[in-house]
């Protein structure tokens, strides 16, 4: 049975109007790469002319776009219609739709955007901080609430390990996060905000996430304790760390 080849070609007809045109104009060449029976070839030739295929494309694209607009709505907004369209077109050219898991598609798209940003191919002052915030929101939405890592305490010399609480994320901003996210919440795109060093702390609790701008000092400290296994401290916590441990944003674990 060559059903596999038929489904591959049919999916391509739905996902790609360009391929559809190629099949309509020259089916022999366009379908040559697929393992097809004569009947399947006739079916695909006919379907390339079927007006309903346009609807298939519309649904396919709407669904794929909705995976991003539902998980990364602020990023989509801050990119603007044209910026989003250009990035989506480029992303879809190179990345096939792997599955219907929204968070996975969002992370793949986010990695693509961040790579473009770092290569200087996307000029947008706000997208990185907004995107990192939404990735943190996604991660916290999936974390069991206030659950410490199962592998604590890590191996190593005796002492204390301090680290960012697993239900917290710290995101650096180049603009005041209150103003950036507040503007987006009102349906507008931020513009001309003063540049500086800012930090946003995200705290997941009971299925919701609180967003708390924190001072530069606290932000730097929390960032220093984020990632990896945290920091090993042989003795008592420095006072500024102790304060963050008391609030619950840092956890401090004794290693035997």
């Amino acid at each position: 049975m060559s059903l596999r080849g038929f489904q591959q070609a049919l999916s391509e007809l739905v996902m790609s109007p360009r391929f559809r045109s190629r099949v309509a104009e020259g089916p022999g060449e366009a379908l040559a790469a697929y393992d097809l029976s004569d009947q399947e070839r006739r079916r695909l030739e006919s379907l390339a002319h079927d007006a309903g295929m346009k609807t298939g494309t519309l649904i396919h694209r709407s669904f794929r776009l909705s995976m991003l607009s539902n998980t990364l709505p602020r990023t989509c907004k801050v990119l603007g219609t044209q910026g989003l369209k250009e990035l989506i077109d480029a992303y879809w050219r190179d990345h096939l739709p792997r599955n219907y898991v929204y968070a996975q598609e969002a992370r793949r798209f986010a990695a693509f955007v961040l790579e473009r940003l770092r290569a200087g191919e996307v000029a947008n002052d706000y997208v990185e901080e907004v995107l990192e915030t939404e990735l943190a929101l996604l991660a916290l939405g999936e974390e069991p609430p206030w659950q410490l890592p199962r592998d604590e305490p890590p191996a190593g010399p005796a002492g204390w390990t301090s680290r960012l609480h697993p239900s917290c994320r710290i995101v650096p901003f180049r603009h005041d996060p209150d103003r950036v996210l507040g503007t987006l919440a009102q349906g507008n795109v931020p513009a001309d905000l003063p540049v500086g060093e800012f930090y946003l702390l995200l705290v997941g609790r009971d299925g919701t996430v609180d967003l708390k701008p924190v001072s530069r000092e606290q932000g730097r400290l929390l960032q220093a304790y984020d990632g990896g296994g945290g920091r090993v401290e042989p003795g008592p916590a420095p006072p500024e760390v102790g304060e963050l441990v008391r609030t619950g944003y840092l956890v401090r674990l004794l290693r035997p």
Partner: protein
Amino acid sequence: MLELIQPSATARGADRLTSLPKLGVGLSYQGTLRGFVLENLDAFDFLEIIPDMFWQDQGPAASPRYEDRANARPYLDQVAEHRPIVAHSIGLSIGSAELFDTGHVAQIAAWQSRHGFPWHSDHLSFNRLDHPTGHTLDVGFTMPVPYDRAVLDMMVERVEHIHSRVPVPFLLENNVYYFKIPEQDMTEAEFLNRLTERTGCGLLLDLHNVHVNATNHGFDPWELLDALDLTRVVEIHLGGGLTVDGVYLDAHSGPCPDEVWRLLEGVLPRAPNLAGVVFEVFGNYYPSLGPERLRQELATARSVLGWS
């Protein structure tokens, strides 16, 4: 051409369909309905979930492959204290050539055991496939399969595998299609009848899908419904749609059209094994529908169904 008639599975399948609990009117769960569900338990008799929304599938190579989403279990446990839960999956892609996900079936079996679904269902279509690049891709909607004898044989084998793993009836939903595959061996009704006859599986009759197909392809919906063996229908789906560029879409975007209510009225007396009628609205359209209108749709379904 004569078709070799397989031994009938009706004897083992139909009995299971006739003994199902008559649940009544169900609501199809979406994330935006989370609050509505708990605050309006009186408005529906059971909750239908897409179980795939409650877990993370890390892919067949991962171990563990499936992880529950945060708060999934407490929420479902809370609902289950008040209402039965039924599973309507989107992850099987039963029509995919050379790709049958037995891991997904095992996960459904595990969730059936945990949550006690009286039946479970999926779609008569494919959405996943092996791409020539070697990756698995997902087209993102329910693509039609040809109603051919070879496809029927493939489906029968797969349904039998599901029956062997999940100890409650399995239903397949009739598809919505915007383009028609030419030169098929069977009509949609013939294909569905033979599939249910040969496997003993049930039918999830989506009346809005029937209405959408009839509207877009210009046929009388009763041509299909009259030809279908409606005794196999265990569940019915209702929903609303919208028109884009002259095409009526199964968008689950609002109230159920009058035509679909009339189809429901006509089907009910001929579907003796019906156990539930479910109203579907997509989460992003719920805010425009609103809780009052949603309650109204559910109340209308109860009224038409007429079960006390």
